């Protein structure tokens, strides 16, 4: 009997060894120098712990990553592990291209325990058909960053005069913007244009509008709200008060330089990390602050900017062994969430992390947290990117081409309705 057991044990060991002998995991992610350093260390440590596993980390520019992963998956050669924004991930989930979470490999008893470790609502964008997908890499919401020195130069006090409503934002911006003729040389604030679902849709939602009516049939619900926001953008652009537009350089990047070009911008907590590397003097000067996402005066919903996440996913077409090791590796990485916060300023919404002193002591983390609690998670739809593109076309039309907001809205409604009705 004992002999038999021993034999079995050896056999099992042998089988595991030969199976595990050469597991090579391929992990695709986007460029982020600080995170690359950190993750390369985890890969080394993980490989040292499990010599049978090697992990190949491939990175590319964030804006190209979506296209690359898509092309690879369409050719059935997707990486074993990858991360993307939640809006982009939905198609992968719906089409069964990524695997539901493996609680055992993640070191928990069951899915419920796993979900309970994270803040409420974390997994809402990656839940489909009763299954839960992926491990959160970051959860982000945007607030307003202010350069206090430049704000004061315009004769205003940042501590009291900072814009609380969108109406105030326009007033303050009119005072602070500097121009050479029509050409703006100092912008007070500007939007983050391609990300309309994250930053513009919440403005519509504040006024009670939405992309789809509650019954799911009508596109561009509550036209009045949409019209008001489109008019706001028209007034912001060159056919209105000329405060900024999409053709100027990215506001968030310029803001970091503290070179007098940009007073306020919209960004997430990770901006603090980028600022610390890009411009440490400005970071240490204390001449910047963060305030909540403004709300319209006559808002019916008190909402912050939409929160969006990056999730690590595991390829459903990878072999079972690879999948299991992939989850184990992800578990190892999520076990170091404090370091992701400390060195890369990325928040993995793990309860213990959000409640930790480390998080609380980060500058303005409370502003982000309070806004997060009152924000929706970003609109998820298989055709989300197409809808965002159409919203972008409407905004560009009113801001740049001088189209009447009502006409732009009509076109937008038609376009989005077509996308919704088109069951491709």
């Amino acid at each position, binding site marked *: 009997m004992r002999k038999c057991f021993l034999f079995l044990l050896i056999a099992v060991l042998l089988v595991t060894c030969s199976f595990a002998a050469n597991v090579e995991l391929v992990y695709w992610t986007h460029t982020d120098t600080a995170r690359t350093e950190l993750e390369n260390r985890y890969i080394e440590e993980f490989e040292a712990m499990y010599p049978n596993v090697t992990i190949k980390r491939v990175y590319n520019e964030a*804006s190209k990553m979506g*296209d690359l992963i*898509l*092309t690879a*998956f*369409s050719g059935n050669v997707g990486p074993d592990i990858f991360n993307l924004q939640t809006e982009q991930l939905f*198609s*992968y989930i719906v*089409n*069964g*291209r990524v695997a539901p979470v493996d609680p055992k490999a993640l070191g928990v008893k069951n899915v419920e325990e796993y979900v309970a470790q994270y803040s409420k609502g974390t997994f809402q964008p990656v839940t489909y058909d009763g299954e839960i997908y992926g491990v959160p890499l970051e959860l982000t919401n945007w607030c307003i960053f202010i350069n206090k020195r430049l704000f004061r130069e315009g004769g205003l006090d940042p501590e009291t005069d900072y814009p609380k409503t969108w109406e105030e934002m326009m007033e303050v911006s009119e005072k602070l913007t500097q*121009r*050479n*003729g*029509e*050409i*703006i*040389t100092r912008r007070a604030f500007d939007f983050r*244009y*391609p990300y309309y679902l994250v930053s513009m849709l919440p403005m519509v939602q504040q006024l009670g509008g939405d992309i789809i009516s509650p019954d799911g049939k009508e596109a561009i619900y509550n036209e009045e709200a949409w019209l008001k926001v489109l008019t706001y953008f028209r007034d912001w652009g*060159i056919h209105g008060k000329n405060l900024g*537009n*999409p*053709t*100027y*350089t*990215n506001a968030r990047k310029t803001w970091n330089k503290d070179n007098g070009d940009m007073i306020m911008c919209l960004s997430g907590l990770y901006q603090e990390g980028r600022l610390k590397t890009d411009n440490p003097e400005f970071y240490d000067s204390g001449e910047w602050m963060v305030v909540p996402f403004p709300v319209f005066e006559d808002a019916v919903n008190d909402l912050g900017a939409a929160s969006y996440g990056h999730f690590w996913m595991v390829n459903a077409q990878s072999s079972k062994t690879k999948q299991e090791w992939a989850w184990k590796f992800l578990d190892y990485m999520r076990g170091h969430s404090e370091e992701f916060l400390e060195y890369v300023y990325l928040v993995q919404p793990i309860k213990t992390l959000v409640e930790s002193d480390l998080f609380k002591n980060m500058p303005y983390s409370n502003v982000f947290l309070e806004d997060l609690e009152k924000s929706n998670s970003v609109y998820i739809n298989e*055709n989300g*990117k*197409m809808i965002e*593109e159409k919203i*972008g*076309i409407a905004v*560009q*039309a009113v801001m*740049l*081409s*001088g189209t009447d907001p009502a006409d732009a809205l009509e076109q937008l409604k038609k376009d989005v309705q077509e996308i919704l009705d088109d069951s*491709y």
Partner: protein
Amino acid sequence: MARHRKFGMERNKAKWGIIFILPSLIFFAVFSFYPIINAFYLSFHRKDLLSLRAPKFIGFDNYTYLFGSSNFWNSVLSTTFFTLGTFIPLLIFSLILAAFIMSRKRFQKFFQMAFYSPAVLSSVVAAVIWLLVFDPRGLGNQMLNTLFNSPGVDHKWLATDTMLRLSTIIVYFWKYIGYFTIIFIAGMASIPKQLHEAAYIDGANRWQGFWRVTFPLLKPTVLLVSVMSMIQCLKTFSTQYLFTVSGTPSKPINVITLNIYNTAIRDHRIGRASAMSVLLFLVMLFFTAMQIKGSKSDDVTYM
């Protein structure tokens, strides 16, 4: 006997001809014919790029969808604007520049190289430079404002529909003007000098000499350049792609190739994207057929 030998030589020639062509043919089969056939096949199917299900046959649905889609017609319009707006000025200016350079006795090579030098840069670099030039504070506004003495005016290079279209045309024009100028110079250089001299003896001035002698003989080159540049313009992608990725409005410059790319990659609708590719393919085939037909009837010989 002699006939038999000649027949044998013909067969031998045919054999070698096929052997010489075979490597390329195999290459094209794998990397061109197969993907093209694949595109034709998919254009009659519904297929989501990420779906693991087999493509579903839907007949001409993709095509009828396209013909009823404003987005598609907008792309047709953008491509037409771009093609006409680029290749006509390219043709005229490269012809003028070539004629002017040929009329100079010195610095011919310097001008050729100066006009050609932008073609050396890669599209990524060109886009990086031009996006800064077209910035509201950039050189584009500064130069126009100095020229028109209109300080502080923003010409909205990347903003309004017309200016944005013009900006993509400028980038393309800048990149290819030297290339076509050099083609014309080569065409002019191959015209025998005696023909000009004969014209001057007949009392023609330089202007008349150009119109009566040079231009008619350049016809094949003009035709070649126009069709080549037209096909290139119809296939334009990188300038528009890099511009929209950097945040310019997409609608006015959403040319067909960009639309194909976005329909496949952003929207995952590979069937529809394939149908668009097939249509573009047919249009280009039509223009090439016209060129071949045109060049045959217009052939000029001056031996």
